[in-house]
């Protein structure tokens, strides 16, 4: 039992530190695409933290809404921003044709 408790507390500590680090990286990252990916990773780890806190309901909502849908919404907003600002970002997968249209 001792070993299990120790393992759990180590896991919780790592989880908490990883959350703080991810949050900081997401806020500080100058690259918006990177920040969004970090935010999604943050949401998934946060769902794990809710599970550790015995709140599976919130964990489900966090994973589905916090990580999944918010991430998708942010990525969609980023794609829209890029196509409007005509910025030459590297992370364009599917809207290259639009960039060509607006480039001139």
């Amino acid at each position: 039992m001792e070993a299990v408790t120790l393992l759990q507390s180590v896991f919780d500590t790592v989880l908490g530190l990883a959350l703080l680090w991810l949050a900081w990286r997401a806020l500080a990252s100058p690259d918006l695409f990177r920040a969004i990916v970090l935010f999604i990773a943050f949401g998934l780890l946060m769902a794990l933290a809710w599970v550790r806190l015995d709140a599976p309901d919130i964990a489900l909502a966090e994973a589905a809404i916090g990580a999944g849908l918010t991430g998708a919404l942010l990525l969609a907003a980023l794609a829209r921003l890029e196509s409007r600002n005509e910025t030459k970002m590297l992370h364009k997968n599917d809207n290259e044709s639009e960039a060509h249209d607006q480039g001139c």
Partner: protein
Amino acid sequence: MIRGVDKQTPFRWLLMVFLSFLTVGLGYAVLSLPAQTPGLSDYVAENIENSGVSNPVTAVLLNFRGYDTLLEIGVLLLALLGVWSLGGITKQRESSPGPVLDMLSRMLVPLLILVAGYLLWIGAHAPGGAFQAGAVLGAAGVLLLLAGWRPGARFSGLPLRITLVTGLGMFVAVGIVLILVGRRLLEYLPPFAGALILLIEAAATLSIGITLAALFLGGRPEVGPRR
């Protein structure tokens, strides 16, 4: 885009001072919390039999504090109205999804709909419920939109709007009917509580899912058949 870096320096100091105060205040609030609070879980456990469901979270969300959930669904609808008020869809993306995404969406969307139904049903006894089920349904919608599917003009007029307000409408309708019966707003009769909660949750799941997918679409879909 254009940031007046020079002008922002005093504001930055102000912000730092403000954040320091906030940090100290938050720290004080956390440290002055009592170590162990009884909370309201005893009240919930006492009254869970009258709530119509056996999952305490669903009992609180849909029965004891149903009013809050009603307003939450209203807020979601308001968010969509805000997005729609910014205008229609700016441009139709004509990118082909590619075989992998196409195949994946075909396989995953039915599964996601099934999972949403399961989450909705299991919410009465175990973790789950309308918001989680709605989010999964919304994810299915997002996947469809990513794969290039767009709502047809026939669906995006009145049928879409009716689907969007079904959740809130069902909630309000149940509340009004209960008032007419002589109870207070959303004070269910215990024998019907389970059925009413399921009814509200089913409608809310559909609305939440469609709302989230419509949020991802990012603009008001064009109305009316275009010929």
